[in-house]
């Protein structure tokens, strides 16, 4: 790179507290994120901030010249660089032991539960047993503000009520096949099983004094059922009255949460393992190590992120509107910025696991479990 290659840039930001005058400056194209940050910090004159830059809505990784070459941008016009404060990278903050079997699933939200392969539920913060939920492995967990839903290899679906520091079983239903995925909101719960069926359940209203004896004897029947996929419904996520499901039959579908009618079906070329949705953008983890991003509005795959060295991606979770974390069978947790490069994670977290099976974000922390009886905790402000 020649030193005298110059580009005129203008710094803009959406955060008014760190704004700088928007005069165009001439900088060397060899400047990277650190040099640009220095320039902005000098212009601001305050404390040094760690900044990230967006050029044409894409994260600047590497130098400006590399960015321009990668995205086909011209270095002759004035480049408008939007900057914002960089979120700190998640850092390992300890682990808790949960029983003596693998941790297969984690529920997000404020109080994180871990589902173990021995069928018990653990509190991820301290590793204490929350409940003995299933006969066989717990395969999926989902949480709302007051409820927890769990599904297991024994085909049972259990709804739990969060009260104080304990959970209480409120309803128990059953599938004809092992349950593979679940999702819920305050009123409804959805579960998908290995036969490709999606069951919709209505959660009982929050009663002041639930008569546990009576409710246990009552059979909890699904409110509606549909054959959603040809193969296992491996992941589902409920967002804004839309239910997203993904399956090993290489499709992702959107269902109307109220009627269970199909709204959209998109296909790719690999089996999909997991899905998480934020702001109408779904991230699905595929069996070949790719993370496919789907946009509900344009109804197509937007991008595929490849960082798990062709090992299955077992779980994905959004951290903020542009950042997501993925867990793979290569034992790594990758943090991605979807505005950045498709093959370059923003950061890679290692957690001494051979296989990472689940990852969940909640309460300003990131939790991950895998083929060891530990749940690893990472500090993730803003998650």
């Amino acid at each position: 790179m020649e030193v005298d290659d110059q580009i005129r840039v203008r710094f803009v930001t959406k955060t008014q507290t760190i704004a700088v005058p928007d005069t165009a400056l001439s900088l060397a194209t060899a400047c990277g994120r650190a040099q640009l940050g220095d320039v902005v910090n000098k212009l601001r004159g305050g404390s040094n901030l760690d900044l990230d830059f967006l050029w044409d809505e894409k994260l600047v990784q590497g130098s400006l010249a590399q960015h321009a070459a990668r995205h086909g941008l011209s270095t002759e016009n004035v480049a408008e660089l939007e900057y914002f404060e960089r979120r700190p990278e998640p850092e390992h903050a300890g682990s808790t032991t949960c029983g003596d079997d693998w941790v297969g699933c984690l529920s997000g939200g404020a109080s994180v539960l871990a589902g173990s392969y021995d069928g018990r539920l653990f509190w991820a913060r301290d590793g204490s047993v929350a409940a003995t939920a299933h006969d066989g492995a717990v395969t999926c967990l989902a949480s709302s503000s007051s409820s927890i839903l769990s599904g297991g290899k024994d085909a049972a679906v259990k709804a739990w009520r969060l009260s104080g520091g304990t959970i209480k079983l409120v309803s128990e239903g059953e599938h004809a096949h092992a349950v593979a995925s679940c999702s819920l909101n305050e009123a409804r719960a959805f579960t998908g099983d290995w036969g490709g069926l999606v069951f919709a359940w209505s959660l009982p209203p929050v009663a002041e004094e639930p008569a546990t004896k009576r409710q246990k004897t009552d059979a909890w029947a699904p409110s509606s059922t549909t054959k959603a996929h040809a193969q296992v419904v491996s992941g589902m996520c409920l967002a804004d009255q839309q239910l997203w499901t993904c399956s090993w039959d290489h499709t992702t579908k959107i269902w109307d949460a109220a009627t269970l009618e199909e709204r959209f079906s998109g296909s790719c070329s690999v089996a999909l393992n997991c899905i998480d949705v934020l702001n109408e953008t779904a991230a699905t983890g595929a069996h070949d190590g790719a993370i496919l991003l789907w946009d509900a509005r344009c109804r197509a795959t937007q991008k595929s992120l490849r960082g798990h060295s062709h090992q299955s991606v077992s779980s994905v979770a959004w951290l903020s509107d542009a950042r997501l974390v993925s867990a793979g069978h290569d034992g790594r947790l990758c943090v991605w910025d979807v505005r950045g490069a498709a093959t370059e994670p923003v950061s890679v977290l290692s957690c001494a696991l051979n296989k990472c099976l689940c990852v969940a974000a909640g309460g300003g922390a990131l939790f991950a479990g895998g083929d060891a009886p530990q749940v690893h905790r990472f500090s993730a402000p803003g998650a």
Partner: protein
Amino acid sequence: MPKPSKSKKGKGKKPPPPPSSSSSDAESSDSDDERSYEDAPRTWGDAERAQNSEQQRESGALQQLKDQALDDLSSDDEDAGNATGRVPTHWYEGYDHIGYDVSGSKVVPEKPLDGLDLAIEADDGEGVTVYDKLNGRNVRISKRELEQIRRLKKGAFANPETEMYPDTYRSSVIETTPLHNAPEPKRRFIPSKWEGMRIHRLAQGLADGRLRTREENRRLRKEARDPERRFLEAAASMWGPEDVEDPSGRRKGPLPVPAPKLKLPGHEESYRPPAEYCVDDEGRPLTEPEEGQDFVPKQHDSLRRVGVYEKGVQERFERCLDLYLCPRKLKRRLAIDPESLVPKLPDPRDLKPFPNALCRSFIGHTTAVVALDCSRDGQWLATADDSGRVLLWEVSTGKLIRETAVPGPLSALRWNPHLEHHVLAVAGKEGVYLVDTRTARGDDREATKALLEGEDDEGVIEQRRDAEVVGVWSTLQQEPCTIVKCALAAPARTVAWHARGDYLATVSPDAIASMQCVVHRCSRRSSQAPLKRGDKGGQIQSCVFHPSKPFLFVASRTTVRLYHLARQELVKTLRSGCKWISCLAIHPGGDHCVVGSRDLRLCWHDLDLGEQAHRTLKYHDKALRAATFHPKSSRYPLMATCSDDGTVQVFHAKVFDDLTTNPSIVPVKRLDVSSPKGCLDCAFHPTQPWLFSGSADGSVKLFHAL
């Protein structure tokens, strides 16, 4: 008046070529630079002559000429001037005379006419003057004499007036009543075939370069005389290639055989070889001498110090022997591009997806994994090792879920193909076991339980040596999982389910002939041996049910027989040519089957085509152990074979619906299981393009498609 024949002899003129062949005409190289009779003006045309003789006849001059012609016959050769006889004329060169006449006086030659005189002579048009070298005279040849010479050369009568057929009526007047009324023959109106052929031959010769026109001949002769060109040609032939093809493409005689080439001398044969070719002080060569080198390189200061080469004569002699005694065989090399012999196969990249990369390993076995199978929903994997452990794994994570102990070394394991029956059939030393996998959920629990329920047979097989008792059924255990045992007379080696999941066929090669193949009905706990006489092709090795029809494939050591189970008859015999069949697999469509053998071969049989194999593939270095098709063959047309050489070969095996198209079998991937002891079993995932392999070192691996 001198005779023209004489003059001709005196001129020493070469006789012109016979006018019969025009090809020789074209080749003939007439020298035009000499004056000849040929070139004398020919004014005596045929028509003119006829007209002339007519005039002479009318005027009476003809009669006079006839008398004259008679007079011509009187010989006057005797009064020829020079009488030297056969003495060559050049003996008289340098003298003023050229011989002697009969009287003995010298014959002094006249001076030949010079160019100007000749030009004047030629101008008068009445004849030519030629010089008679023998007699040293200028002879005037009149126009008439020229004509006579020309006629003599043609072999005609010398005098133009001579009528060959005096009685023939000739007239130029066309009579109103012609002498004959024959129609004009056809040949007058069509081009002559023979002339056409001749013209064609000439044109062909000119085109090929066989014939040349006179002008071209002249040009070539002129060029050949050019000394510079001759030098260049000689130089070119000296340095050019030895076996230059004849440019016309026609070679006469046998092909020239090049002499065997001498090895060119190298550095070590130089009179002053570089130091590294020489020997050191102890007489050891510094570099390895070339093969066949029988001399010690020696350095000489200058060429004149080089002594006589002792072996020179001997080597020359041997070379001569080589040249004329050694048989020279003409070796024809085939100029075929080896790539063109390889059959055109599609690029494997176009045939994706197929398993091509290791996805995960299932760690838990310590002894050889002899068999594995995946559950119908693709959720579980069951593996069996030869110590009697049956392990159940979760496919998506590779986690070991459960371990079940089954007595005895095991040899085969198959998951029940029915979706509701969560039962494994395991072939062991004492018989076949049905193992509840405890993966049934919901209503499947009842279906599985119903399949495994039943009453135990009384007694054991040793006590009932009765030939009709084939298998003794008993429930081995109920907790934690139900295991039902069907004891057989000999160790079961393979096991195969019928598609409906109730019937089960086992093969015990070591049993007596009638008991080698046994078909069980699980729900009734009954066993029967359908083949009363065994198989003529040797021990039965394997058997498989047809996926949709009531057929049973039974593979013996050399043949595969197809039996109709309802009609109890032999339908078809497949002869693959293998010496020892080891495995058998049926395409899910039911019209094709593959047979793997211990002699490395994999034979693809089309059941609609005859008994011979449609294709024989050889992709393994050691005996084949198992062959399998992907259950979803319409979406993933895949086939895999595993072998003792530790590899799994994946094929793209597409079968077409129309009967005229042959199935396309393309080897797409060779998966290295990296087990030195070999791969013992492989199985496809039922819904994904994934492949499981189990090896003799206890490793179980899953390969997925990238």
